[in-house]
């Protein structure tokens, strides 16, 4: 009974995510009016920005769990922090992909250095990918957990600093040729955006819960095997 209850959290999250995303995409494609400046292609914004925000949320969650690990030295936070970083990287990759599509549609090139968010995500993607390299090449245990936690905390500190750096770099790297207005959020647009954001957050939470449960089961299984041996 108790496993069903635990699983049902994952199940209900998945259901919510599915529902919200389907609704959100439908709203974005069919209901919302065209953006005045950019036309139909702008609609990818409704997916791109929620995915980006969800990625930030995942990294923030990972940093919080990392902080808890360092405070309490309770090893279960390690798994939670790691899974959150994993989600963050997945959504980060999605951000880069959707951003790249948007760039291609808007400006005809798959990559533009003038897009601050995109460049920031590139840096973050590299940073958190190195997180996995760090974990992969260190023996599992409290040391690895500690180092991963410190690294995850550095990551969130790096976010605003990198953003500032990118802004500063613009004046000598790449003059801001393209002027992108954030879309004026008419009521219907805002609603669609919120539905999509809720959907991506729910999706991240569902995937997080799923992976965490799976990894915890793995650990339990291994512990049982050890005890029997």
């Amino acid at each position, binding site marked *: 009974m108790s496993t069903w209850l635990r699983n049902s959290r994952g199940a209900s999250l998945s259901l919510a995510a599915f529902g919200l995303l389907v609704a959100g995409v439908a709203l974005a494609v069919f209901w919302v009016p065209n953006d005045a400046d950019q036309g139909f292609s702008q609609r990818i914004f409704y997916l791109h920005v929620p995915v980006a925000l969800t990625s930030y949320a995942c990294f923030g969650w990972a940093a919080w769990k990392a902080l808890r690990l360092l405070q309490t030295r309770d090893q279960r936070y390690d798994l939670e922090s790691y899974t959150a970083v994993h989600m963050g990287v997945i959504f980060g990759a999605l951000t880069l992909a959707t951003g790249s599509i948007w760039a291609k549609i808007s400006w005809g090139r798959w990559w533009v250095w003038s897009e601050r968010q995109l460049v920031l995500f590139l840096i973050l993607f590299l940073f958190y990918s190195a997180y996995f390299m760090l974990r992969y090449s260190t*023996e599992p245990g409290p040391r690895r957990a500690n180092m991963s936690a410190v690294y995850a905390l550095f990551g969130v500190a790096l976010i605003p600093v990198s953003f500032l750096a990118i802004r500063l770099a613009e004046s000598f790297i790449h003059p801001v040729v393209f002027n992108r207005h954030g879309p004026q959020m008419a009521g219907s647009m805002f609603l669609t955006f919120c539905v999509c954001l809720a959907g991506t957050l729910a999706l991240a939470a569902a995937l997080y819960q799923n992976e965490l449960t799976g990894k915890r089961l793995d650990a339990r299984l291994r512990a049982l095997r050890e005890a029997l041996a």
Partner: protein
Amino acid sequence: MARPLITARELEKRFGDKRVLRGIDLDLAEGQTLVVTGPNGSGKSTLLSLLAGLLAPTAGELEVRASRAEIGYLAHEPLVYRELTAFENLDLYGRLYRVPERRERIGMLFERFRLWDARHERVGSFSRGMAQRLALCRTLLHEPRLLLLDEPYGGLDAAGTSLLDAELAELATERTLVVATHEPERLAAATPSVKLAL
């Protein structure tokens, strides 16, 4: 009754999937001597690393009521810089452990362990026995309350062994000792109060 210096309950240490220590229960009062025996790979070094505070237990409880300044740890490696001289190494540790009258103490230890002539030589040029004696000097430098010795006789020749016998005999009466060895017969001098076989 004073609280024991070391208390362990159901102590367990795992490295990844491999469980090295399991179900260790221990009570060691101040002034006692604990001898940890077992074949190579049984987890003696791991237990000493846990007691020193270098490793954290995977499960169970461990309490060592001695601060870092009061613990002397002799590891498998001498924990000294090969490119520095014996004196420079001990001088560094002496500063870090805030040893009073550092130079005199170092000199005295060098004399006792017959390293005085080699004190200004690079540790990299030392023989295994000399390195072990230097490691013993490092361990005893700050007159620790609790001594954790992992295979203290490793690499010593006959002269070094008798030196260490005398030293341990004296230390066992004054301080708390934990000695890990796979040859407990050698520890004739220090009569163990507590034995633990892994």
